[in-house]
């Protein structure tokens, strides 16, 4: 029991914490990809979300206003990706990378202009406090999480329900599989893609805000550190389905939490970097063994034009 309380429970708690930003971002990516658009703007959208969240919270004094700002700016980034890939029908890879380069440049530039003091002291704010619904209980620390973590995990069944059980979800999947047929059936392909990309962008922005407002209480230049790319990997790993994305996310989060724990104890089984690289390698292996043809939305990477 003691072993459980002192090792396993903190590990589970850490897993949920590590998984939160990845989960938000991956759910966002899942939405867009189900409608047939690969959003490579994810990394930059998270970066801008982290920055805007920080700046809005610092200037307004309200952390939740910060989150709102991050969600809104994320939706704008999603709309920008949609403008390039849906309205203009441009190459999804290059457009998405362009948005990532642009938005991360904007975030870094404005951070430096607003907070880059010559004294070198980093701007900080008081981050979110964790909620503690079961104080004193053995399992208490598992539930001692940020409100955003609760929201992120709550969004998983919601995203599943939205995609699998609603009229809107049916349209999204139709657009992702066969936009021509969807159009013939009266679905507005462009509007559906805009909607999913903007909703997804909002989630990516929130993912960034979790890092700056809950995890750090600051904005740093390496704040996203490739988490957007991990999210993309996990969406594929999760076969474009929210519940499976969650499973992959928990596996990955547990691995990372374990690594952090071992590192804190001074134990090194394998070099830190090996575990960091693991989700990428696993995803590539999963792709290699599963192939992608069967499961990826069929219209992915294809622009739709009405003739």
């Amino acid at each position, binding site marked *: 029991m003691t072993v459980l309380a002192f090792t396993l429970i903190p590990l589970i708690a850490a897993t949920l914490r590590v998984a939160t930003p990845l989960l938000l971002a991956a759910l966002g990516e899942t939405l867009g990809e189900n409608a047939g658009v*690969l959003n*490579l703007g994810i990394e930059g959208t998270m970066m801008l979300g982290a920055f805007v969240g920080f700046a809005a919270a610092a200037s307004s004094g309200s952390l939740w206003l910060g989150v709102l700002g991050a969600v809104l700016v994320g939706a704008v980034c999603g709309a920008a990706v949609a403008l*390039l890939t849906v309205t*203009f*029908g*441009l*190459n999804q*890879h*290059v*457009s998405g*990378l*362009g*948005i990532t*380069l*642009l938005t*991360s*440049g*904007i975030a*870094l*530039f*404005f951070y*430096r*202009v607003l907070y*880059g003091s010559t004294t070198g002291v980093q701007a900080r704010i008081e981050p979110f406090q964790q909620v503690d619904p079961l104080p004193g209980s053995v399992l208490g620390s598992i539930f001692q999480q940020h409100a955003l973590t609760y929201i992120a995990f709550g969004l998983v069944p919601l995203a599943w329900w939205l995609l699998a059980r609603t009229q809107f979800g049916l349209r999204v999947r139709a657009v992702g599989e066969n936009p021509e047929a969807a159009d013939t059936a009266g679905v507005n392909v462009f509007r559906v893609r805009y909607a999913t990309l903007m909703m997804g962008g909002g989630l990516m922005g929130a993912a960034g805000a979790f890092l700056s407002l809950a995890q750090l209480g600051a904005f740093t230049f390496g704040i996203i550190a*490739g988490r957007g*790319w*991990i999210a*993309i*990997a996990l969406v*594929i790993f999760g076969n474009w389905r929210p519940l499976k994305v969650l499973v992959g996310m928990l596996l990955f989060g547990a691995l990372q939490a374990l690594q952090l724990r071992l590192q804190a104890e001074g134990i090194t089984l394998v*070099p*830190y*970097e*090996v575990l*960091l*690289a693991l989700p*990428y*390698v696993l*995803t*590539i292996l999963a*792709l*290699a063994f599963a*192939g*992608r*043809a069967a499961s*990826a939305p069929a219209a992915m*990477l294809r622009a739709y034009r009405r003739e």
Partner: protein
Amino acid sequence: MFSVLRASRGAWLLPLAAVVVTFVITLPLLLIARADPLAALYAFVVEPFTSRLSFTEILVKTTPLLLTGIAVAVAFTAGYYNIGAEGQLLAGAVCAAWLGPLLHDVPSIASIPLMLLGGALAGALWALIPALLKTRINVDEVVTTLLLNSVMIFLVSGLLNGPWRNPVTKMPQSPAIARTAEFPMLLASSRLHLGFIVALMVLAGFWFVTRRTAFGLQMRAAGLSKSSAQFLGVDVSRTLLIAALFSGAIAGLAGVGEVAGVHRRLIEDVAGGYGYTGIIVATLGASSPLGTLLSASFMALIDNGAQEASRSLGVPIYLANIVQATLLVTTLVMLFVQRRLRRLR
């Protein structure tokens, strides 16, 4: 932007418009950064040409950008979306940093070709995995090349913080490469090194292969339409595989150049985002040889100009990222406009 070089008459208006739009969009940023726009413009556009040193510095910066730009252009020409130039560059750099310190007793005439060959092979090897996945079982190369970038970044970090860490200073730097493995400088009192010549030779090779050989024609056919190319008898899988390997090899050369010509060892940010900027270079240059050269130098000018503006005016250096990315996005939009105009005509 420089797609003008192969586009029809009057099309020069579009790239010009892209530059003007980028300028208009990014100008307010200078005001936001409380910098005198004229002084900033001077720092960006004029200052680099005022001294020999600052001019050669542009060429130093052009070297890796030209190589990664060609690497991406080779792949894009064949319709293979290699987003992995960053990782392939690092693979080349790792190989150079591994070979370099072993070559103390080898004369330069042998050690430098060995470094180049090793780096090119390492880059090609890193490109092989996604290329095989693409051509054998049709796994999207964008995602795999992108993921392998991160894997390589962790590998570099693991090497530099593990076995290669400097034992005395504890700095994450690999041991210095042998004197004989260093690239010779091209001009006295400048940092311009042999890598620039290598890049120009690769560019000439790129022009020759795409414009003068049957394989180049096959690549372009595959790039235009894989199904039509297949129908015309082109072995598309083989063409993509070869293009991907060459793409990786060329990116690997960029890594060798940075290690053997600039840093003389492996450092953590040796890639400096050149792999991603290479995508901008290839897109702006419309994957044409001359366009790639022009856009690589233009990107280098922006990079160095931002450095100068940051030094003299305190404008955040990230202005370069914004200008380059804005240029990419506006060029993409201009391509759309061009397509529309052509349809109207």
